[in-house]
């Protein structure tokens, strides 16, 4: 290895270390920041948990003999708490208030800010929603096969990333319009309806199920829960993973394109 390339590797490593440190600090700062609004985080956690909880109650009544309903909906509840994204409130607000201008002038990728806040809110939601999850688990006497849970972990991580990219992409509409909440509210409804929260995809009519399998919403919510609960197996898990990775790549590209176009607009017409 030549001296120049060694220096390049060292510089890249140093940059990567700095980014990791900034990311860690960003999450930590946001966790502290949200400590003053824990009650709001609690309402967010309730908002994420309430639909799976209703689904659990309703579907256990409808299908009392289906033993997978409990594990499935408990997993959906946990996935919802771990992947909830609110960039329509947080990042869009920074565009409306002009705070994004300060971020643009900092020598760091702007994504560190929204990503840090996203993870911090999730930490708070998990902390505040955990008693509810434990309560439901105890009362429904739900059990899991550890192999299914392990298989679901990568799907959960992909879901967390995908939902962030998805919500962030739509939140960036705030560069063009002040009505971003309506747009994100609509797509969040689609996640609830077609992601496996209102009803497990396996219980949907065949046509709707086929459509839902093609869309990104299942990968954000239902897929990790299905794998953990054991309602999907074999090739279907692989197909689900392929779709999840594909949609994550799509929304990674979409978020990058929306960011570039949004910043181009913001730096052309001002805040």
């Amino acid at each position, binding site marked *: 290895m030549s001296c120049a390339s060694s220096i390049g590797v060292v510089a890249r490593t140093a940059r990567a270390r700095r980014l990791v440190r900034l990311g860690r600090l960003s999450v930590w700062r946001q966790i502290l920041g949200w400590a003053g609004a824990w009650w709001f985080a609690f309402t967010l956690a309730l908002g994420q948990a309430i639909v799976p909880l209703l689904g659990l109650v309703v579907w256990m009544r409808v299908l009392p003999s289906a033993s997978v309903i409990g594990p499935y909906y408990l997993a959906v509840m946990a996935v919802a708490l771990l992947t909830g994204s609110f960039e329509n409130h947080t990042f869009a607000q920074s565009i409306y208030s002009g705070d994004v201008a*300060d971020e643009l002038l900092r020598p760091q990728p702007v994504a560190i800010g929204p990503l840090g806040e996203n993870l911090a809110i999730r930490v708070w939601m998990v902390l505040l929603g955990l008693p509810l999850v434990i309560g439901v688990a105890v009362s429904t006497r739900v059990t899991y096969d550890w192999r299914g849970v392990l298989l679901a972990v990568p799907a959960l991580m992909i879901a967390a990333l995908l939902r962030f990219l998805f919500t962030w992409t739509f939140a960036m509409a705030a560069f063009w319009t002040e009505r971003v909440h309506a747009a994100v509210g609509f797509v969040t409804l689609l996640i609830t309806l077609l992601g496996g929260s209102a009803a497990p995809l396996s219980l949907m009519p065949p046509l709707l199920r086929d459509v839902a399998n093609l869309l990104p919403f299942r990968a954000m919510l239902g897929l990790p829960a299905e794998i953990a609960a054991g309602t999907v197996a074999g090739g279907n898990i692989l197909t689900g993973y392929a779709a999840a990775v594909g949609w994550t790549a799509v929304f990674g590209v979409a978020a990058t394109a929306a960011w570039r176009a949004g910043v181009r607009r913001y730096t052309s017409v001002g805040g």
Partner: protein
Amino acid sequence: MTYRVPVRPAGLAAAARSLIHRRYRDVHAVQDASFEIPAGSIVGFLGRNGAGKTTTMKILSGLLHPTSGSVDVLGHVPWRRHNDYLRRIALIRGSQPLGGAPELTVLDSFRYQQVLYDIGEDDFDRNLGELAELLDLDGLLQRQVRALSLGERMRAGLALSLLYRPAVLFLDEPTIGLDVTATATVRRFIAAYSQQTGATVLLTSHYMADVESLCPRLILIDDGRIRYDGSRDRLTATLAPTKLVRVSIPGLHSELAEFGDIVERDGDTCVLRVGRAEVATTTGRLLNRFDVADLSVQEPPLESIMDQAFRAMHADGSATPAPAGESR
């Protein structure tokens, strides 16, 4: 810098039509603005509301991409926002002096800034120590941002922005809303910082006292065009060719009118307007002729000079404000 803004007549029908056929108008926020600022200068960038000051500041700092033209700050094109550039500048807005989560302490924000700008531990300690002393921050470092007053936020915000020793400061209304003490502290600090570090400062402010105490050079902008670029003294001399002589003489002296125009009379004190060239001889004559108890020579307030300049510029769009008394 040209913005394209949608326009339509008032009324429901026009609103409905605009859904299908939108019409736009070009707004020239800044045009033909050209100036150079040598390193180490403190320059006042002044204009009325909407004149183009903040737009220019945003272009220079890298927040806005101009429609045409070129800008060079520290050898960088600002709107490319290279990290090397961003590490050497600071845009400080008086309206938003200190961002970040309000639950964090001021010291938390400083520590984050340390990582963000790669400041070594020794430099951090030294810079923070100096800033804390100059801006009286010792009592603030452990406090949460949300508990700070506006003046405290401004002091902390200034220190935060200067922790990494930026070479160029863009100060947008840095003393807005501050009380007398905080304003004086900020002014003293800006002057000291520029002197100590050789930093270049571009300052916008509606407080002429800021400008008077900090900026020997002024750039005036109106309707997006630079109308004046030169020394404050020259502008003052051009627009106000007179000075005010305040003299206190026991007893009423009607012959004071011989010495200049009487602007104000209050008991034994009289304010005379005297041509700049005659100030020395007039004060000498006053002292020789009368038993003078007190005498002072004052410049006309900068507020009134700037008001005069802005009115003149707006009236005829001239690049140079007309001297007072000249017909425009």
